[in-house]
């Protein structure tokens, strides 16, 4: 045992870096939506980067600790409190047996990662502790947390690592409006030149339905498709294709109206054409977008995407070297 849930928050789940290797069977990769923040949270408390943490979205949980632990909260600015006293985000702190961790209202971002020294100890399912909610797979009993849950914490290694902090320059968060960099995809040719230009010109807003499965964007101009006779097996809407695999990060636009970026709990295939893919380094940012936030899609090439990934990884390397 290690923690007892007093109030669960909105949809707090156990997540690690995910469950790759089964997407072709329809089981998504899951794992934290902001993987950089998740890794940082673990590093701050001396865990392996892939240890399981709690992902809290929009609203923090209230948790009583039944043993001593070191804790860190990264990602969204969801200020943590220990017995009512504020603690700093992106910085590790100690919690004693009997103390209660709770949170202020969300100040910025969307998802906070709560790492506890020793890691959340739930069974490993298909190589991961991450919850895939729709499949009732992994996590704590295959679901988000509920009041009264008692959850185990792994053995912590070594001494307290309290007061370690990620410097402000390395706390990655999306700007406002957020920029999501995109590489055009194999169905890019299906939309008109005008639609291609509008897609990047328009400022989109996050729809309230956005979740771990996909983020939907609205308020941009509808995309028009190039006329064609739909091939055998494709649906009748011009945004339909013959069913295909959906990559993580791919952008589909059902009916040409509202782009959806598939995220960690996405379906693995279907019949909507994908006009492009958000680059891997920017997928973390999507996990930090609140409903109604403004977003611009920015076209980049593969070299840029790889350079940005490299830059993100060197930031992570700096966090690994924090004493």
């Amino acid at each position, binding site marked *: 045992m290690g923690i007892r849930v007093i109030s669960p928050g*909105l*949809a707090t789940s156990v997540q690690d870096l995910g469950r790759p290797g089964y997407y072709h069977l329809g089981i998504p990769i899951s794992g934290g939506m902001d993987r950089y923040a998740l890794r940082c949270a673990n590093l701050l408390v001396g865990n392996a980067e892939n240890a399981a943490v709690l992902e809290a*979205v*929009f*609203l923090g949980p209230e948790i009583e600790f039944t043993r001593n632990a070191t804790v860190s909260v990264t990602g969204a600015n969801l200020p943590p409190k220990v017995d009512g006293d504020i603690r700093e985000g992106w910085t590790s702190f100690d919690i004693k047996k009997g103390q209660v961790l709770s949170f202020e*209202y*969300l*100040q910025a971002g*969307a998802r906070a990662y709560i790492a506890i020294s020793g890691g959340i100890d739930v069974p490993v399912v298909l190589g991961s502790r991450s919850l895939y909610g729709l499949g009732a797979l992994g996590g704590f009993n295959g679901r988000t947390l509920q009041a009264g849950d008692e959850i185990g914490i792994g053995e912590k290694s070594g001494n307290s690592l309290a007061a370690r902090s990620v410097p402000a320059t390395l706390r990655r968060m999306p700007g406002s409006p957020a920029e999501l960099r995109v590489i055009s995809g194999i169905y890019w040719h299906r939309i008109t030149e005008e639609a291609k230009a509008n897609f990047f010109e328009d400022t989109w807003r996050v729809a*309230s*339905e*956005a*979740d771990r499965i996909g983020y939907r964007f609205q308020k941009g101009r509808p995309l028009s498709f190039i006329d064609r006779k739909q091939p055998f097996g494709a649906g009748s809407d011009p945004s339909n294709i013959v069913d295909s695999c959906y990559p993580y990060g791919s952008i589909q636009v059902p009916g040409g109206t509202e782009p959806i970026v598939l995220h960690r709990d996405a379906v693995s295939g279907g019949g909507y054409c994908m006009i492009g893919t958000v680059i891997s380094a920017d997928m973390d940012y999507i996990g930090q977008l*609140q*409903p*109604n936030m403004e977003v611009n899609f920015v076209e980049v090439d593969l070299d840029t995407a790889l350079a940005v990934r490299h830059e993100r990884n060197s930031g992570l390397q700096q966090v690994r070297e924090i004493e």
Partner: protein
Amino acid sequence: MSNQQIVSPLPGIFYRRPAPDQPPFKEVGDAVSVGNVIGLIEVMKSFHEVKSDRAGTIAQFLVDNEDAVMAGQPLVDLND
């Protein structure tokens, strides 16, 4: 005098009615007590009740029905 507010715990879309064909939870001038529902927030494909954490009388709504709201945003001014 207005000196208290009810804030939204979540970002999302604010609704004043439990369903489109039903009357609003509360109107200006209505009394609220701790735990009374004053509206709904829609986010991530589900609806969450906004409950008052204090007692008073509703002086005004600070956002319209179906407005987008941020976490911590004041929704209602309350009089004692």
